[in-house]
């Protein structure tokens, strides 16, 4: 058992900040790495030490195993925390750390390789007696083969990246005529994201729920599950709202899914924190999808209902400490919901909206947690994932958690970039969401209702605010003497795209 003194965080954004906070609480020095685009990023400000690793594109910085390891060696890091994304599920990176004698905070490299290849994970599940979604058990590299398998399984079908994760390289196909195009797109995205274009197929279930189980395993033979997270609210196959407990999961289903998750983790010889993703059909049957061999974006909902700090537990397990609890000691208390605040425009199909943050006021007060990676005046770069913050609300029950989250969203102010916050405001009022009647098709199905028009009073107040502000800007511009052009030139800040050129 060793005690880490210095942990290198091989990531950026909110998760790097999250890990730096855990290090500070444990009195461990946090070592940040940054690309040229991130010199002034929040994760650099929050760390104890910081090292440049290359140009803005991730391939030249955050994905450069050689450079990150060189920094780790040079700076005397005892351990590396990979966060999620980037190198978090890269077996070669974990192996390089192992070989350099630097602890990788996660499972062993061979476990990552075994579970990272999604079809071998599916075969392992079958061996462990865990049901999987019908589909292919080996990766496909050939379009004709893929077409044949698709016919065998039957449409609708999901095309997935064998090396995949995070919704990348994933396509739903309902119509055979779109199969080839969708497969080509998926392969191209998978190649770009993972450097591996191989695909596999899964039967698309009707209105499935996406429910996952968090597991923790130490190096002393103890494996526990830390209950479920409901992740059915997705756009473009990426989660946007998660909660725990799931409003759908009964105590019996929870116990059943927890046992399946532990069985698979034990069979895989799993160590540290990991998550087993399941689809659950309307009848309540779970089907294993894949295992994420790292911290999940949505880990805070589990933390808020269990009181555990999963990042600190990851570090402690990696230090060789036994888990400080048994399965029977774990309890869920109340209900937690997370909204992922993305720099995206829901009005334009969730297209990314990078840029400079002009206003940032996070909500506060009882029952809230904001895990942010940005700050007012800072830049959201085009190069990386557009997640700027995770907002989590806790309540004694689901209704209180939702009411609190609504309150939080109404307090959260972000200007300069477009975010998913106004979209959440409407999801959180939707009757189907309030009833817990959600599945992975929720957003697509209700998209029109989620674009509700503003009320007359809102329009009036917006006009009043804008008109008074315009008058004041004009007056203060005059007070400062003649202005080149007219008063409105001072307004220019960024493109006014909805209205087009008005003058």
């Amino acid at each position: 058992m060793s005690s880490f003194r210095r942990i290198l965080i091989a990531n950026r954004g909110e998760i790097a900040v999250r890990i730096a906070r855990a290090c500070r609480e444990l009195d461990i020095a946090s070592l940040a790495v940054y690309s040229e685009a991130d010199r002034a990023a929040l994760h650099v400000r929050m760390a104890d030490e910081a090292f440049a690793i290359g140009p803005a594109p991730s391939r030249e910085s955050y994905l450069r195993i050689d450079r990150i390891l060189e920094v780790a060696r040079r700076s005397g890091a005892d351990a590396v925390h990979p966060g999620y994304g980037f190198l978090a599920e890269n077996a070669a990176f974990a192996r390089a750390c192992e070989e350099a004698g630097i602890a990788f905070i996660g499972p062993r490299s061979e476990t990552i390789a075994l579970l990272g290849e999604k079809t071998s994970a599916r075969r392992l599940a079958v061996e462990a007696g865990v049901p999987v979604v019908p589909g292919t058990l080996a990766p496909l590299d050939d379009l004709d083969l893929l077409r044949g398998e698709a016919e065998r399984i039957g449409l609708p079908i999901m095309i997935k990246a064998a090396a995949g994760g995070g919704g990348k390289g994933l396509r739903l196909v309902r119509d055979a005529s779109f199969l080839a195009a969708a497969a080509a797109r998926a392969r191209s995205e998978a190649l770009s994201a993972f450097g591996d274009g191989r695909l596999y197929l899964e039967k698309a279930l009707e209105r499935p729920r996406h429910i996952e189980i968090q597991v923790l395993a130490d190096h002393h033979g103890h494996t526990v599950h830390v209950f479920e997270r409901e992740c059915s609210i997705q756009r473009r196959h990426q989660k946007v709202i998660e909660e725990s407990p799931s409003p759908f999961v009964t105590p019996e289903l929870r116990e059943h899914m927890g046992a399946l998750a532990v069985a698979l983790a034990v069979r895989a010889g799993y160590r540290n924190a990991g998550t087993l993703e399941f689809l659950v059909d309307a009848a309540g049957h779970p089907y294993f999808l894949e295992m994420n061999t790292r911290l999940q974006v949505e880990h805070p909902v589990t933390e808020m209902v269990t009181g555990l700090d999963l990042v600190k537990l990851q570090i402690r397990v990696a230090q060789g400490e036994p888990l400080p609890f048994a399965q029977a000691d774990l309890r869920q208390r109340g209900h937690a919901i997370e909204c992922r605040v993305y720099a995206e425009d829901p009005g334009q199909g969730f297209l990314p909206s990078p840029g400079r943050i002009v206003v940032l006021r996070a909500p506060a007060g009882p029952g809230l947690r904001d895990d942010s990676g940005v700050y007012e005046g800072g830049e959201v770069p085009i190069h990386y994932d557009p997640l700027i913050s995770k907002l989590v609300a806790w309540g004694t029950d689901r209704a209180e958690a939702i009411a609190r989250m609504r309150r939080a969203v109404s307090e959260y102010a972000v200007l300069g970039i477009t975010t998913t916050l106004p979209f959440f405001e409407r999801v959180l009022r939707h009757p189907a969401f309030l009833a817990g009647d959600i599945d992975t098709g929720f957003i697509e199905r209700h998209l029109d209702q989620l674009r509700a028009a503003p009320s007359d009073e809102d329009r009036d107040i917006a006009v009043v605010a804008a008109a008074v502000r315009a008058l004041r800007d004009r007056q203060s511009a005059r007070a400062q003497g003649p202005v080149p052009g007219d008063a409105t030139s001072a307004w220019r800040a960024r493109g006014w795209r909805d209205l087009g050129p008005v003058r």
Partner: protein
Amino acid sequence: MIYDATVDGHTVRAEVRAGSGEGRYTVRIDGRPLEVDVRAAGPHTMSVIACGHAHEIFLEALEGGYRVLLRGRVLDVGLVEAARGAVAARGTAGGPARVQAPMPGKLVRVLVRAGQDVGAGQGLVVMEAMKMENEIRAPRAGRVKEAPVQEGQAVETGALLVLLE
């Protein structure tokens, strides 16, 4: 001052005049008078009290107007000084449709060429931005007049991708 204010597709006439007392204004919206008490609380924040109702407002200057954030709801308000003439007609109704890049990024695929007929919702180009491939689709049916872009090209926000007629 008198403005033509456009918000969510509605255009109204807004007449704003300073009242007596700090922060007091009268705003007439299409003639309806509203007495408001406005206090700045920072460069982008204001507190507006209108008939007892308190509104916390965040504002961002845009070209030709402001983005207004009202407790989780975002409204873009376009303002034109009424003295300068009527509001320009919105361009999207009948004429050609300009499909522009909604963000900076790289074009990984151009799916149409000039002269081709496309249906509403059909994919026109695929852009990569923030590690995702995003398909930009046709806002309506029409014929591609121009597609002045090439695969592999980097584009900025607002760049013309496809002109439909």
